């Protein structure tokens, strides 16, 4: 039983790492955004696994909240990307660089 949970937690750690890597290396705002979603969902996976490990409902409760919050974030985030794209015709973060010293 515990052995399986270790595997799930390792998988979630790998997915989280991939998400971080994606955020740090990708150039398109939408792709970065998808990587952030990957990070959040990898955490959900580990929360469900830990919830099973401790035989406790709290982790699964948090997962529901995380999904709701991620949905709200998507709504605001996509609106921001769209407004940038309307003004600049690009969503490439390396080209969006007016603010720097």
């Amino acid at each position, binding site marked *: 039983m515990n052995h399986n949970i270790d595997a799930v*937690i390792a998988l979630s750690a790998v997915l*989280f790492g991939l*998400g*971080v890597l994606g*955020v740090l290396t990708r150039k398109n*705002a939408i792709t*970065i*955004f998808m990587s*952030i979603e990957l*990070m*959040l969902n*990898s*955490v959900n996976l*580990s*929360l469900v*696994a*830990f919830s099973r*490990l*401790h035989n*406790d409902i*709290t*982790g699964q*409760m*948090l997962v529901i*909240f*995380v999904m709701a*919050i991620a949905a*709200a*974030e998507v709504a*605001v*985030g996509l*609106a*921001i*990307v769209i*407004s*940038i794209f309307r*003004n*600049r015709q690009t969503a490439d*973060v390396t080209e*969006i*660089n*007016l*603010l*720097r*010293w």
Partner: protein
Amino acid sequence: MPVDYTLLLQDTLAVSPVLLVLLTGIVLMVMAAQKHQSAALPWVSAAGYLASGVLLNCLSFTDSTAFSGMVATGPYFLTGGTMILGLSFIHSLLSGRLLEKDGIYFGEFYALQAFAVAGMLMMVSSGNLIMLFIGIETMSIPFYAMAGIKRKDIRSNESAMKYFLIGSFAAGFLLYGIALIYGASGTTSLNDLAVWIASGQAGTLFWVGIGLILTGFFFKVSAVPFHFWAPDVYQGAPTVSAAFLATGGKMASFITLAFVSFRLFPVPSDKWGLAVALAAGLSMIIGNVTALAQNNVKRILGYSSVAHAGYMLLAVISQSAEGYQALAFYVFVYGITTFAAFAAVGLLEKNGEPVTLENLKGLGFSHRLEGTVLTIALISLMGLPPMGGFIGKYLVFLNAWQDGQAGLVILGVLTSMVSVGYYLRIILALYTRTDATEVIPVPAGGAATAALVLAAAFILITGIYPAVLTGWTSLL
């Protein structure tokens, strides 16, 4: 299972200030949908914050919990909530004028702000890591929209996108930290966690989780090495939004950090202290030194916020009651001071032009009130008497000194001296006579003037007679 209505009523009463702000937000949103009522919006939101603040101070708060430990209604809720609501109140007095000046005719701004304030109140009253995460996100999501509210302006767009991407990236770390702590301990309640830590079972998994949570917090308070977004966001966002993001967000995040530290580590933890000390030292150095090279006033204030995050973290290292009290004093004064600085800059700026030092030249003569308030705020940020910023720095340094952080205190004093350099440049620019044609001052209007005068009076009173605040922060 029968519902215990008495308990439900008690719990609802305990969180009623939050509910009142949420209700204000909903009312504002409905009103904003009917454009013609927009002149009333700032007044409705000011009334909402004032009522909520009064309600918060009427409830008798002993250290207790509501909703099965999800909400902690202790002195932290009282202190943190009062400063957040006070700031929001004077901000809504000012925002009407600044929004009009910037050509932002979205009444939704006020609703977004109200929801962000509700999130902040949830943060400072969180008794559980789940509530902490929900509170931080409820605050942050409206913040992203507020930074980008000037839809046609590419700088506002860019600041919103940077803030959004980096903010949600940080939220991922925070959440992973919560998951690891839950995995290690089997609980997310701060009270249960404290018991579990005291029992000595905390292993590597737990400390990695704590590290990730601290990373999330360092992002939110813009501490080095997670500070790079702050200057960009404060520069690009409309000044009316920056005045709130830079102050309210910081107040809520620091009070929450103090509360988490207070709950989890009644016995000071070396690991927690070391991580905070590192971030504090780096923030003081990098924030102050980089600010010297800036030319845009809002950007200088952005780096100044990084530097001040360092001073405030200094108060968390000792993990003592005196430290948290010093932090509460500092963060309250810092919030109002930075608000005053942004407010004055917002009233001085010409629409569409960046607020560089050259553009500020001579404006202190034509705009006497704004010039005076900005000067008072900057002197307070330098940490010189007779301003509140001086007392705040004194309390924080005193606490760190007594805790044996002599090196960091000396570093703090030295970097404060460096900071005089860039704050003084702004004041000098304000009072440099130019040959340019005389600027005809535009009167700021009653409500905005009241906001400026209130903020300046607060800075002076806390500096001359700090007992008004210390008596109240000593509750912590």
